């Protein structure tokens, strides 16, 4: 009897603690390497739901207002259906907002914001002034090469994009 009660107590505690652990909103930052290496963020739903069709774009590439627009239109997401159940959608949005370019949590975010007007909320990273400027030396024809396909295909050139690494050593424009 005593054991049974204690068992139930332990189970309840375990349940509460694991719930707490899994509802932490912010994800975990493993340091901010500055301009070309992004803070390593982990967030289960974001990694699961936003990395099937392209890399999971770092939240620091866009301001909060942009992420609200992106997450509010997942049913018609750049011509594809990326819709989610409302709870997962809200969970991911919260994570994106907490780590957004204007959240003040990363150096790369501050650089993105330096080139963005306060009321701007682009849907695309690749249309931000910061992105265009960082890529002004990439030949125009390279973007539409078959091996690249789209500017949104960061990993075609940044071979460690999935790990958040965008430095000169790991970049190569494919033929």
């Amino acid at each position, binding site marked *: 009897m005593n054991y049974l009660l204690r068992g139930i107590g332990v189970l309840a505690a*375990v349940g509460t603690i*694991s719930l707490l652990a899994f509802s932490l909103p912010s994800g975990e930052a493993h340091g901010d390497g500055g301009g070309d290496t992004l803070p390593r963020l982990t967030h289960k739903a974001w990694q699961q739901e936003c990395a099937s069709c392209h890399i999971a774009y770092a939240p620091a590439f866009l301001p909060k207002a942009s992420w609200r627009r992106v997450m509010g239109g997942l049913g018609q997401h750049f011509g594809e259906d990326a819709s989610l159940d409302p709870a997962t959608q809200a969970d991911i949005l919260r994570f994106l907002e907490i780590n957004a370019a204007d959240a003040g949590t990363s150096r790369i975010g501050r650089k993105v914001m330096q080139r963005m007007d306060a009321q701007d909320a682009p849907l695309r990273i690749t249309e931000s002034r910061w992105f265009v400027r960082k890529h002004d030396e990439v030949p125009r024809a390279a973007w539409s090469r078959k091996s690249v396909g789209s500017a949104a295909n960061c990993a075609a050139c940044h071979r460690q994009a999935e790990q958040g690494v965008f430095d000169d050593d790991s970049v190569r424009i494919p033929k």
Partner: protein
Amino acid sequence: MIKRLFCSGLAALGMVAVASAADTPASLMAHYAQAAGVPLASLSAARGAALYRAEHPGRNAQTVSCASCHTADPKQPGRSRVGKRIEPLAPAANPGRFTDAAKVEKWFRRNCGDVLQRECSAREKGDFIAWLSQVQ
């Protein structure tokens, strides 16, 4: 103590995760046959293959099919529209396929809508899995 509780919490969650991922291609076929109100044996791999290959009008005057992203041979890796690798769809090449009912439903909903401009019926989903699970 907290750490130990946390670890056993993780272990417990791990068990739950295993339990909820216990679907198999066979159990999903049975589920879709039942939802369609047809006997399991009436699911057709030939119809599934036809669904996979059928071309439909897409964007920019190009046609689109399931094979556009998953490639003509479902044992091969495919490519998303953005260019990201998609692991093979056939369980023979990728045992993780059709083992999570919620994931399977999510992608049928999205991809059937994308390619066919409508949802796939329960029988079409059953046929589709019937075909892929016999690809060797």
